[in-house]
């Protein structure tokens, strides 16, 4: 049995995956490497909006938060955002009373629909914001979710 050949194949395979990742990074450096820690470090809603470059997002009926009114378990709160606006570039989910306010930021390339769902942690009852960037402008919706059992530490 030629063990060296096997090793060579394995190494080659590993490099191939790495190469693909690098290539992916090169193809779209803007999306893969742009995560802005400032946004995630924001301590107030206004700070978070400012860090996102959103200024004061306009409340819009075109943005809908799909989430329960009461979450029994704050460690796993299902939150979805849908929007009927045109030319949507990104969707962000923020939890006002969490130490880490910005939960997630979804960047939607053309062809991806404004319909995302995830699960977030909530330390306590709080307003949840969905901020949608559409056609260069920011719109938002807000919904209070009551938490009966906190999700941080507990």
């Amino acid at each position, binding site marked *: 049995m030629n063990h060296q050949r096997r090793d060579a194949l394995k190494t080659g395979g590993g490099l191939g*995956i790495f190469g693909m*990742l690098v290539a*992916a990074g090169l*193809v*779209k450096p803007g*999306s*893969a490497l*742009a*995560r*802005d820690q400032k*946004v*995630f470090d924001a301590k107030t809603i206004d700070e978070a909006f400012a860090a996102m470059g959103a200024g004061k997002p306009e409340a819009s009926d075109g943005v809908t938060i799909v989430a329960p009114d009461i979450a029994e378990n704050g*460690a*796993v*709160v*299902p939150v*979805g955002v849908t929007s009927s606006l045109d030319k949507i570039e990104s969707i962000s989910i923020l*939890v006002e009373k*969490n*130490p*880490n*306010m*910005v*939960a*997630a*930021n*979804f*960047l*939607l*390339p053309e*062809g*991806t*629909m404004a*319909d*995302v*769902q*995830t*699960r*977030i*942690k*909530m330390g306590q009852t709080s307003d949840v914001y969905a901020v949608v960037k559409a056609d260069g402008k920011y719109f938002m919706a807000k919904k209070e979710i009551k938490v009966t059992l906190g*999700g*941080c*530490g507990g």
Partner: protein
Amino acid sequence: MAGPMRIRAATADGVTEVRVLMSHPMETGQRKDGSGNPIPAHYITELTAKHNDKVVMTTEMGPSVSTNPYLSFKFKGGASGDTVEVSWKDNKGESRTDKVQIR
């Protein structure tokens, strides 16, 4: 260390819905262990999903996302048998890539 992702991708009426369940502790850095020492933050920071070679979703995450993060999204197009590939990386530099064929 991190287990494989569970990915489901199904297409209907020209729209493909992708659901991803990652296996990750998503430690916030706020919690303390039994003896009062802080548990270091360990969470996924970025996720990228590709349909064949086209990026269909990039998600930037903070530690407020639940343990074993779940994500679902929809994109136009996609045919049965196409590949959907999802990769994430976390704040400790770990990463994982899994792929699945659209049903």
